[in-house]
């Protein structure tokens, strides 16, 4: 913690392993079959709108729900619906899914470019596009916009930090579709009447900073903010504080402090969607790891099975551990047949797991976890409180503020499962009705 | 409770110091030498015997409301009596015990036994209980004194047994050593009785009688 510059958010320095930095995003060959789950977002799962045997086109809506807190699901291939099944997603949740047999023609559904005048139209358009936070959280994008009194929102923060090791998909978006990013920002600021925008990018991506900086010079309201490359720079509250200086108070949403945050890829997709009206049906993901022969960035239709993607990149046979997402917050894949969903931004395959199974030894009270926690919590004490199931103490130590970035477990010399215990503690509090 | 049972209970099963954790102040303070330990033990036994007998004699006379001050005065009386005797016949021991001789008055054991036993039982039984508890106390103090003197000064009852070879560890004479040896002795008792001592302390009646039952250390385990 350097005492010199202002209040510095805690964090850890992690090896970047950004070896797919210069890999241009290339599409993978069309899979024969896609399995599109109905729950690819945080919120209420969708219900399938098609029957077995129906013919669907690329970008046709195949699942929706009347609930606001959900994002509709579209087909990424043209073909015939083969089956309606149930699968277990990487995060462990069960969900219905539509299996579509691709006919190879990839016939596009007649998309209409949305006409938007008021904020309300913008909100319905974004919802129709099926866009979810592409940073990995999967929070339906329109929910962030749909703020009753939009006037209080004044700033847009674009998250291009991408602090997870290996992943370079956002970086590639900044390089390959910088114009889209600019147009997207302009659109969002126009429709929501925002006054200024900050783009947070870690210093280990100079080309992205330089490119976006050049393009965004056109609008003085937009500022590119280079940030120290410290994990978890991309965490919502951390990035908002580092770029705008505003502290999102405990228990409140960023919108309460007048800020809306969007992932840079979401903004880029939004710009494309506002032009062509084509919903979110493919994902630019990074494929990397010690088992992968051809690591790189690939655009993958939503629903393609993980095995297929890895086989194409030559990383399936030797893999003993496959991660969906980054090594810090990603989840391990148990069944390679599971599909790539909207929220997956990377697939990592390793010949053997990175961190040898550490047997947890006694805590030596070294304070590294407290120094690492960006939310200023005391993971060591949280673990004791959880072991004793002392919910009062858990609440007193504000475990609900934990963003699950994993920094504490990463630095713990005794290899104790600190961030995992926080997840359990939050469930315990939720079960008890916090 | 047969008489023999009353006596033995005080000595081993419910040893006032090592099991019930009463009277810890003198146990730590005067046990720098085995001789002092025994001296203190016997003086306390004398006072305990005297007060138990007198209190069980007067148990009907003393009204409920003022029983505490009465007991305390009777005990103080006996303590002063012991003070006279020691001053006259054993000045060296009196010098060694010093202040702690008069602190026997506030020793929880005596007050506890008076409250719990003497005020409810016959004179004979009270006397036996007093002797049992008294000798239990002396035994505990003797152990403490012996260990501390042996390791701390290399002597036993004042006789040097280090033959110039072994060097005594002075710290056992100091207060720190007192705490340490006392802790180890209780641990040993816990180990020997395989934890029964700990439970017995928790449902012991000796503590309930002590007016400070609510907040005193030994009895906290009762409350737990």
């Amino acid at each position, binding site marked *: 913690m350097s005492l010199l510059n202002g209040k510095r958010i805690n964090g850890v320095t992690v090896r970047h392993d950004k070896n797919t930095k210069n890999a241009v995003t290339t599409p993978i060959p069309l899979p024969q079959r896609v399995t599109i789950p109905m729950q690819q977002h945080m919120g209420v799962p969708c219900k399938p709108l098609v029957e077995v045997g129906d013919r669907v086109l690329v970008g046709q809506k195949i699942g929706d729900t009347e609930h606001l807190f959900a994002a509709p699901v579209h087909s990424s291939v043209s073909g015939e619906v083969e089956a309606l099944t149930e699968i277990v997603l990487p995060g462990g949740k069960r969900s219905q899914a539509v299996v579509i047999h691709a006919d190879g023609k990839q016939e596009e559904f007649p998309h209409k470019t949305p006409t938007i005048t008021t904020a309300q139209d913008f909100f319905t358009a974004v919802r129709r596009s099926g866009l979810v936070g592409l940073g990995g959280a999967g929070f339906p994008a329109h929910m962030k916009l749909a703020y009753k009194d939009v006037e209080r929102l004044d700033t847009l923060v674009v998250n291009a930090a991408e602090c997870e090791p290996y992943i370079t998909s956002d970086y590639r978006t900044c390089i390959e579709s910088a114009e889209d990013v600019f147009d997207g920002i302009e659109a969002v600021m126009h429709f929501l009447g925002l006054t200024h925008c900050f783009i947070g990018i870690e210093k280990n991506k100079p080309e992205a900073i330089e490119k976006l900086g050049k393009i965004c010079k056109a609008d003085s309201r937009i500022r590119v903010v280079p940030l120290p490359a410290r994990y978890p720079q991309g965490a919502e509250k951390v990035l908002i504080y580092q770029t705008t200086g505003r502290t999102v108070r405990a228990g409140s949403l960023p919108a309460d402090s007048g800020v809306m945050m969007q992932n840079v890829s979401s903004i880029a997709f939004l710009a494309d969607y506002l032009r062509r009206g084509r919903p979110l049906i493919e994902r630019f993901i990074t494929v990397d790891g010690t088992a992968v022969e051809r690591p790189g960035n690939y655009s993958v239709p939503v629903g393609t099975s993980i095995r297929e993607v890895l086989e194409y990149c030559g990383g399936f046979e030797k*893999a003993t551990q496959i991660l969906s997402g980054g*090594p810090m917050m990603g989840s*391990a894949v148990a069944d390679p047949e599971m599909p790539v969903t909207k929220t997956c931004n990377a697939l990592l395959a390793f010949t053997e797991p990175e961190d040898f*199974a550490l047997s947890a030894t006694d805590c030596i009270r070294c304070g590294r976890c407290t120094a690492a926690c960006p939310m200023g919590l005391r993971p060591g004490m949280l673990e004791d409180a959880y072991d004793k199931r002392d919910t009062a103490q858990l609440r007193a130590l504000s475990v609900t*503020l934990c963003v699950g970035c*994993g920094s504490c477990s990463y*630095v713990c010399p005794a290899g104790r499962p600190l961030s995992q215990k926080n997840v359990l503690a939050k469930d315990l509090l939720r079960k008890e009705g916090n | 409770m047969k008489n023999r049972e009353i006596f033995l209970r005080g000595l081993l099963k419910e040893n006032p110091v090592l099991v019930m954790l009463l009277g810890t102040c003198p146990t730590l303070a005067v046990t720098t030498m085995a001789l002092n330990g025994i001296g203190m033990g016997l003086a306390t036994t004398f006072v305990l015997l005297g007060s138990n007998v007198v209190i069980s004699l007067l148990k009907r006379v003393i009204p409920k409301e003022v029983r505490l001050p009465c007991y305390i005065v009777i005990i103080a009386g006996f303590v002063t009596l012991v003070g006279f005797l020691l001053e006259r016949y054993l000045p060296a021991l009196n010098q060694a015990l010093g202040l702690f001789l008069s602190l026997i008055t506030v020793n929880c054991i005596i007050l506890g036994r008076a409250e719990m036993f003497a005020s409810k039982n016959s004179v004979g039984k009270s006397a036996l209980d007093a002797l049992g508890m008294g000798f239990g106390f002396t035994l505990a103090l003797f152990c403490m004194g012996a260990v501390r003197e042996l390791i701390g*000064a290399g002597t036993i009852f004042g006789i040097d047994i280090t033959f110039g070879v072994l060097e005594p560890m002075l710290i056992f004479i100091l207060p720190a050593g007192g705490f340490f040896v006392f802790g180890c002795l209780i641990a040993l008792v816990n180990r020997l009785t395989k934890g029964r001592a700990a439970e017995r302390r928790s449902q012991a009646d000796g503590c309930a009688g002590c007016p400070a039952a609510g907040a005193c250390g030994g009895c906290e385990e009762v409350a737990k």
Partner: protein
Amino acid sequence: MEALIVSQSPHRHSGVTTPVIMRDVLIALIPALIASVVFFGPRALLVTAVTTASAIFFEYAYRRLMHRQQTVGDLSAAVTGVLLAFNLPVSIPLWIAVIGSFVAIVVVKQLFGGIGKNFANPAITARIVLMVSFAVHMTNWTEPFAYLHPQAEAVASATPLAVLAGSEGTLPSPLMLFLGNCGGCLGETSALALLLGGAYLLYKRVIRPHIPLAYLGTVALLTLPFGVERMATYLFSGGLAIGAIFMATDYTTSPITGKGKIIFGIGCGLLTVLIRQFGSYPEGVSFSILLMNLLVPYIDIWTAPRPFGLTRDKKKKEKTKTAVEGDQTPIRPLRDVLRPTAVLCVVVVLIAGALLATYRVTRVEEETGLTEALISELTELVPQGADWEELQPPASPENATITRCFGSSAGHVYEVVTKSYGGDLTLLVGITPEGVSGVSVTETSDTPGLGSKAADEGFLSQFAGRKGEITVAKNKATRDSDIVAVAGATISSRAVTTAVNAALAADSELGGDGE
């Protein structure tokens, strides 16, 4: 390919594990070890090996005996062993070093549950236990390079700290101190080697700079008024360097947050200067670190980090009052109160009366003046002295007070009270025309076994026959007016000498040879 390995996020670890940290600490201790061997010879290596081996053995045996997960692998026992060795003089008997390891590993650390559970720093506590138990062995320092000329009789030199605290000896220049060319414990003398090790630890981020800087900074600040040269001597002497860099920064026994570490460092600095300047133990570092260890729980509470985005009002814990329902006892009618108080008064009167009677019977004549016991003692001091009578005590010099004075045919005896190590010291000094005929200590409050040795016959017999001013020498009587002080109890020996000198002065003033 076989089933995939599934583990919970995060799936990556920094690689810094407890054994890695402890290995780095051991590496950081190597320069100091080399310096100790250079200055104090191969025995330094032997002592370190013994303490480390016994520390590891005790931890291994304890964990096995208690059927607990074996933790010898985390090398923390080895670190404690080496650190303990660095706190012992090189001439320490090996069995004492092993006792030190036992205390450090079993009593202070494992009994509390092993690494992370102990509240006191094992090596520091062990050093204090040894310092208190074997004061003589722990305070006999050998000169650096003394091992090069073994035939010369090992001269026990005073450490810079002892010289600072007033005992004779030349004060090495700060440079010499910095390099470590001075008396002291095995590993603590060479500040250069320790700072080297400290730099390594900072570089490997094993320790954070807060505690060493705060600690050394506070000591430097407090000793600056005595002049820069004196400050440097203060900083590089005694156990300050090893204490601030290796002992105070022990994870388990120091605060967790940066702010807490700074408070801890400042606290240690204050206490060290307080104890070194005023206390009777020359080395204040170990006591101050142990005392601050006790405050760590509170420091951790005061300097707890405030969770991100938690404003002040949310943080204030509402004080849950534990209500003790006050039972409103009704005012009882007078009669109920009267009877018990009456009985109480009767009991009190009875007891007082009984005591009054027994007191008369066992009254001990309280003679003032000369009891036979006192007379026999006086004749012991002044042989053939007869028909003693108490005289008016003469005026006493400023550093001692003469409380009583007895005259007899053959000489006088003065009862003198003077200030010593632990408090007041009362002596009886017998003086005849030929000079001091006998000295006996009636009451001493010095630490038993150390200061009290100044009351033994061996030491007191040296005064017999002396007439003029008597002086105290540390080990060998160089001048004929010298007497040799009791090893390790110079302060008490000096106190006895001042008392005897006071008696001699009073006697000469009383008019020559005491008729």
